[in-house]
């Protein structure tokens, strides 16, 4: 599986699981479906961006940093929509981005180098 596909898959799955953790917050339970859907979309978008980055850059260190940044940025935008729970959303969101970044490099297939041709 290529890195973009791995990023989307891992981002989506982690997005679902991350959204489901809202069940532990009693006041958020009534909106659990919307939270899970939003979190899944966020994960898919983050996964695609991180996968694309990993495909271009091919460096584990940079992909981890970029994944953390993208995870934190998207989580910040979500938190800003609600206007509260910044730390509770951004911190786990950053770790989801970090994990997605790691997964894309570790488990995704790197693009094949272009073979030189004889003139």
């Amino acid at each position: 599986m290529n890195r973009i596909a791995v990023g989307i898959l891992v981002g989506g799955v982690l997005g679902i699981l991350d959204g489901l953790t809202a069940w532990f917050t009693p006041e958020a339970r009534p909106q659990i479906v919307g939270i899970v859907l939003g979190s899944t979309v966020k994960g898919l978008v983050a996964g695609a961006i991180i996968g694309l980055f990993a495909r271009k850059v091919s460096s584990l260190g940079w992909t981890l940093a970029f994944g953390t940044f993208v995870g934190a940025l998207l989580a910040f935008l979500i938190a800003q929509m609600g206007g509260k729970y910044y730390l509770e959303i951004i911190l786990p969101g950053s770790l989801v981005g970090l994990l997605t970044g790691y997964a894309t490099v570790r488990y995704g297939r790197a693009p094949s180098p272009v073979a030189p041709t004889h003139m």
Partner: protein
Amino acid sequence: MTGIDDSALSRLRAAVREPDLSGTRYRLAGVAGTGGMGTVYVVEDTDLKRRVALKVLDLPDPGIEARLRREAQVLARLEHPGIVPVHDVGTLPDGRAFYTMKWVQGDRLDRHLTEAVTLSERLRLFLRIADPIAFAHAKGVLHRDLKPENVMIGPFGEVLVLDWGLAKVLEDATDPGAARSTGDSAVLGTPGFMSPEQKSGSSAGVDARADVYSLGAVLQWMIGPGAVKPLEAICRKALAERREDRYPGVPALAADVTRFLDGAAVTAHSENVWQRACRLAKRHRVALAIVAAYLLVRAVILLFTGR
């Protein structure tokens, strides 16, 4: 009559053994090493202005000469970065057969591994030794004398398998006698690295699995005692007394070593649930650490904020 001391005698012997290079393009530069069949000299190729290794018989002998020439021919058909290329073959003015090849500078494997080298580096090195052997097998050639002394590590990390003097050509349509030319009844190889079928002296019964055995012995020597169970199992399978119990070929042995390096299950070792769990945890330890950090953050948030 005047006596002659031992050192003078050995110098005299060396001088007598020295190849007569007059009338050739080569000039003697030194001795690279000695073997059972002859001596390898470092010579200067005056035409191409480079140093090459010249292997020459110590004495003219038609039987051994045929082996030397066949070794050169075997090497010539094995064009691989892990096998020393042959440049020239012929007869010197003193009647001795010779061939020249690339002069390989570096460390022999047995000396190279005296330095601190990690297990994964040793295993990667082993895979690079197995690669030219697998290539030779694909070309129908068995090495039959694999041992650490016959592997050279170059100054840039290049790995070269040397001494194909005992090589056997399995099938050669152009030379039907080639497979018999090394002697069917002779015991050929090095004790400790030689397969049981080689020890029995049956050249006809030797196939690629004899080199699998020797590579298993090299692997066992490279990793040393106290290796983890999957690696022990790989060595045990490669070193099985019955060749039917060994890996069917070098690629299968190399694939199992690669699986071990990748943290995957090896075919030679059946693991229980606990061993499998430990291996998977080790293989995915970074991902598990990030998941654990995530769960910890979630637990801390839940504990302190109730959200």
